[in-house]
Structure formats: C-alpha cells, structure tokens
C-alpha cells in the first residue's frame, strides 16, 4: 500500500487522484483474497457502526454494502424509505440528523436526486459514501467496473471502453466517465440522440454504435429504463433494440475477446442479447462478486484510512 492520504468520504471522484485510486483498487485486491478464504471475516472495522440509508430502493447494492461491512466486523444498521414518503414528512436532513444522534460512524447513502450525499456531507461531518444519487454518480459501481476491467485487461492505460445506452440519465456512465480516464482509459459513450447529454467530461459522445464499438477493448451496456418511452424520449423498444442492442454480431466490431459488462439489473433482450449475457464474454457475474471487495476497500479507507 502507498502512503497516500485519502478523502474521508466518497461522493464522486472529483477529489481523488490516480495514486489514491490505484491504492484503493489494490486494497480491493486484498479484500478479494479475504473473500476467497473459508472464513470470510476480518476484524478491521470492529467497533464501527455503519448505516445504509436508502431513500431509493436497491436491494442488490444495499446487500453488497452490508455484507462488505459485516465481513470487516462492523455493526450495520439500515434505513429504507421511499422518497415520496420522505417528501411528505421528515426531510432527509431530519432523518440523517436523527440517525447521527445514535452514533453512526459512516453513512452509505442512496437517493433518486443528485446531490443529496453532498448535502449530507455538509450536515453530518461524518464519512459519507455515495451509493448512487439520481443521474449523477455511483462511484462504487464505477470502481467495481474498473476493478473487473483490470482483472481482465490488466492496466487500463490507453484502453478504449465503450459505454452504450441511456447516457443522459445514467449515474453509472457519469461515474465511469470520471473514473476510467483517471486510470488512463479512453471512454466513448454511445446512445440515441435523445438520451445523450450535450457534453460529458471524460468521454467522447456518439450516436453511431459501430463507431463506439470499433477497436473497443471492452463494452458496457446500460440498463434501459422503460419510463423513457413514456416521456417521449424514445419512439419504442424495438426502435432502441434495432439501433443499440448489444448482440453477438455487433460485439464482433470490438476487439476480439473484448469483454461485456452491465451494471445490472439487466433487461435481457433489450439492451443486451440474452444469450450473450450468459456467454463467456460476459463479466456480469464477476462484477457482482467484485462489488463486495471494492466496497470493503472503500469502507476501510473512509473509516480507518492509511497511515
């Protein structure tokens, strides 16, 4: 491990430098080794209490975080509430301040609105880990994507990573566009014109799938929310599939062996051909497994840090 110091929170990657990120991924590698043992538990966070506070439901992410904390012997409490019920009564601020009176050491926060982790960080003066805020950021997802890509490709220096789908509304795309270039990769984001932002720092944008996939070292498909059709942003599902579904034939435009990632949960046969998702090219299950190791590393860094 390097002697780098770390931000005591993970809101996004704005304050993170390459050396810190490399070191974090190295820690995740060590956590991966812990998870391979018969007894998957270390005492690193004994005595710490971690709260998962999810104002937007996400069972998978919450379980991944909670297991990560428990495997390092932290106590875990969880608070789940829908944004609608929160809006009616208690505010985010009240909820978090109430929890703060109970001696929580770190907060893992998920919301449907961008910026709440930043607001929480201002209110609490405790480490806040962003587990996804609106369309804005999902940093542990990007970290597990980077970890998984490095497992497969080695260094990301000079590698071309194509991200395909609803870029405009994707916190996964935004966090990857922030993180992967910091690790040396080049990101191309591709999707229908109505689902692309005007600009995305860290990524080049295209509506042409072939252009995005050619010479790509890896391809990431994003989940397509069905509500995009209701809002008139997409004509229809078949229209999307015709233009942007990742199929075996289209994956052949990328480099041979280029792996396929997906942040889950998948809409089989929408953004990704069902058979392809189960093929050896797919790293989807590996991503889930790596998620736990990466989240252990993040918790370790914000709570214990480096000497």
């Amino acid at each position: 491990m390097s002697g780098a110091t770390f931000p005591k929170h993970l809101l996004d990657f704005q304050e993170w430098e390459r050396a810190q990120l490399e070191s974090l991924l190295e820690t995740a590698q060590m956590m991966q080794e812990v998870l391979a043992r018969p007894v998957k538990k270390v005492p690193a966070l004994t005595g710490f209490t971690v709260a998962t506070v999810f104002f937007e439901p996400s069972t998978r992410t919450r379980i991944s975080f909670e297991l990560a904390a428990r495997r390092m012997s932290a106590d875990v409490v969880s608070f789940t509430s829908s944004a609608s019920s929160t809006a009616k009564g208690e505010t985010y601020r009240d909820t978090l301040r109430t929890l703060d009176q109970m001696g929580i050491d770190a907060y893992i926060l998920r919301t449907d609105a961008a910026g709440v982790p930043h607001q929480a960080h201002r209110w609490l003066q405790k480490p806040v880990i962003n587990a996804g805020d609106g369309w804005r950021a999902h940093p542990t997802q990007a970290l597990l994507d980077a970890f998984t890509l490095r497992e497969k490709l080695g260094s990301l220096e000079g590698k071309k990573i194509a991200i395909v789908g609803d870029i405009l509304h994707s916190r996964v795309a935004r966090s990857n566009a922030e993180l992967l270039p910091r690790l040396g990769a080049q990101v191309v984001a591709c999707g229908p014109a109505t689902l692309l932002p005007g600009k995305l720092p860290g990524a080049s944008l295209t509506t042409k799938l072939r252009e995005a996939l050619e010479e790509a070292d890896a391809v990431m498909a994003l989940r397509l929310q069905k509500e995009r059709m209701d809002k008139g942003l997409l004509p229809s599902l078949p229209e999307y599939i015709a233009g942007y579904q990742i199929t075996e034939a289209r994956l052949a435009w990328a480099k041979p062996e280029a792996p396929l990632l997906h942040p889950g949960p998948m809409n089989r046969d929408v953004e990704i051909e069902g058979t392809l998702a189960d093929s050896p090219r797919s790293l989807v299950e590996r991503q889930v497994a790596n998620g736990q190791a990466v989240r252990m590393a993040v918790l370790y860094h914000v709570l214990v840090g480096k000497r």
Partner: protein
Amino acid sequence: MKGEILFKNATLVDARGEHGTADVLVGEGRILSLSGGEAQRVVEAKGRCLSPGFFDLHAHLREPGQEVKEDLRSGLEAAARGGYTDLVSMPNTTPVVDRAEAVRALREKAAQIDRARLHPAAALTQGQEGQVLCEARLLREAGAVLLTDDGRTNEDAGVLALGLRYAASWGLPVAVHAEDAGLRRGGVMHEGEVSWRLGLPGNPAYAESARIARDLEVVRYVWEALETRPQGRSLLHFQHLSTRRGLELVRQAKREGLPISAEVTPHHLTLTDAHLEGLDPLYKVAPPLRTWADVEALVEGLLEGSLDCVATDHAPHTEDEKSLDLLRAPFGIPSLEVAWPLLYTELVQKRGFPLSVLVARFTDGPRRILGLPPIHLEEGAEASLVLWDPSQRRTVDPKGFASKARYSPWAGWGLSGWPLLTLVEGRVVFEGLG
C-alpha cells in the same frame, strides 16, 4: 420653514443624476426644501446618499395561505429595510389573489402594518389556471396594479391575447413568466456543461427565448388591433429575464416600438450555474441561474434600458423546504434586504455601472411600467425616500433578516450601500441609524 426631518449634507442621487449635497427638509409627507430649515429631527447625512424610495415590481409575500414562508408583516418589514417604499406582491398565494375582495383585504392589512406600501398584483386568469379571465375592471378599482399568472406559465397564446386586449382596455399591464413548459420540462437548473456533468435535469436558455418570441408575436397581434393605443405604456411585461437570447429579442422588439417592458433580478445579475457545483438547493430558482455570458449581457441590457428595472422576485421558502434535495426543493431566492447593496457593490463599485442609472432602474423604471409618475429629489416631491451609506462595508448575515427566509446565496458577501433610513410619505418605516 419648519419640518419634521432635516437631512444635513445629504448627497442627492436620483434617476436624473447625482446632484451634489444639500440639506433636505421633509414635512407633511413632502420635500419642503433643498436648502435646509428647522426640523424636529436633524439627521447628519454627510457622506451618505439620499434617493427616492425603491420600487419592487415583483415579490412573493406568500399571504394569504403560506405564512410559514413569509407574511405581509415580515415581507413589508424586509422591504423597508431594503430601502423599498413600494412593492408589488404576486398573486400566486393560497388561495390565488384573483378577486377584488382579496386585493382590498391585502391593501387594508398592509396599510395597518405601515412599512413599505403594498400594490397587489392580481391573477390574469381565474385561479391562475390559464382559462377564464379575471375581472380586470373590478380588480383595478380595488387597487390591483398588474395582472399576472406568475408562478405558472401562460401556455395558451389565445388566452394571453384575450387577456392583453382586455387588461389594456382597463389600463392594466400584464406580466408573464416567459418559459416554454415543454422545453423547460423538469429542468431544475440551466441546461449546459454544468447540468450535464452534475446529472441534473436541465432547463435550456431557449425555453425562455422561445416563449418570448411567441409572446412578442401575441403583443404585435393585439397592438395592431387595439382601437386606442395608450402611448408610453407597457402592454406586456416580461418578468425576470435570464438569457442573452431573450434579451436580444426584447431589445429588438423595443426598437420596433412594441409596447413591452422587462425586468431582471439581483440573482441573475450576480450568480451563474457554476454556483450549483456545490449541489445546494439554495441556488435553485426559476428561471435558473445561467452562464457568465448571460450575466454580462443582462448588465448591458440594464445599462442601455432594454431592461427597464431591477425586480427582486423575492421568493421566500422555509429553510426545511430549501434543505430538500435538488429535485424536490422549491424554486426561489429571497433578496429584498440585499438587492440594493448587492447591486450597488457588484455593479457600481466593482464594474463602474453609472449610479444614477442603477437608481433609475430601482425607481423610475418600475414606476413607469405601472404608469406612475417618477419621484425626483426636488421641492414638493413626495417624501418617499431612502438614505443609504455608500461606504460602510457590512457582511451579509441572513440570521438578522426581517424576512422569514433567513438564508441567502450572498451570505458572507461584503457589501456597501446599506439603507439607513426609509421614509414613506415622510414617515419613518425603517430606522437603521446608529
């Protein structure tokens, strides 16, 4: 000659210019003399400026129905502290101010409070629902000075045309919040590089200009068909311009002689979308904070007069509401108590904006839109005045606001130009001396 208050050695600044120092004697609600005299109270005003009282064409005082955010007492007190002697309240309350009785009730209550004077605006359409016109004649008789569905956007151009024609016949201007609802969608901030990066729904600059372009055509249509065209009056007033493109359209239309007017807010003259980088709903406002290029254009527009006045769009909410997330927190920035010092400091002191022009945009500009005569500092003029200090610097501390909205995007800014004394027809409505 004996008066009530004598301002000794006051520097006189009004819309016509800066007139050096004078001893201004006030009595019987008027300026009695500019050459001194006896008075019950003498105010040493050396190094301080005396100006006509400020007039705010656009403030949300939330009464009736939303008194938890603001009420007439706190809002009119805040206005007086800000140097305002007159204020137009927006009708998007609960219930909406769309009937003569509601206008009368507001005016009676405000008169008892005796701070800044209240001039209620009433809704253009009943319930601000954009369908059936309000009783313009009865509303005017009750004291409404302006009709607007502000808070909502007038989506139906046909209803707007009818409203303009009808309101014009009773001598009332119509004000619009010009944003195309379809282009604006769910935007919570300016659409651009910052919104794309932050992953927040964007409201494009063209939502404003597209609607202004449409409304200008509606005004043209109504204007051509009017039997009598009131000269020098504004038929349609554009609220809170935020974009360079919107300003260009207004400028062009004014050159062609269309009877329109426009306002700009303190926040659109001093803040940009970059302030959203910290992801704080304090900066969430409609129309949104735009780019620095827009700010530059708006300052230019204010100088040349394409923008007739500064209006606050003072929009208080509770601190809890402004602590919701960026999608759910309500739009609005409160500014009655800082508008003048803010713009005096940022425009006049820092950028060399001509002082008398800024005073004009706080006084004659808004008055002209409502068809009111100007107030200039001369014998016989109405003594609705503000004494302010151009030199002493003070930090904005929202905790001391009279407004119930005790937060501010300008908290911590060091400003000069703070009002010291506000008079309405010779009566002291704010006393901030010593």
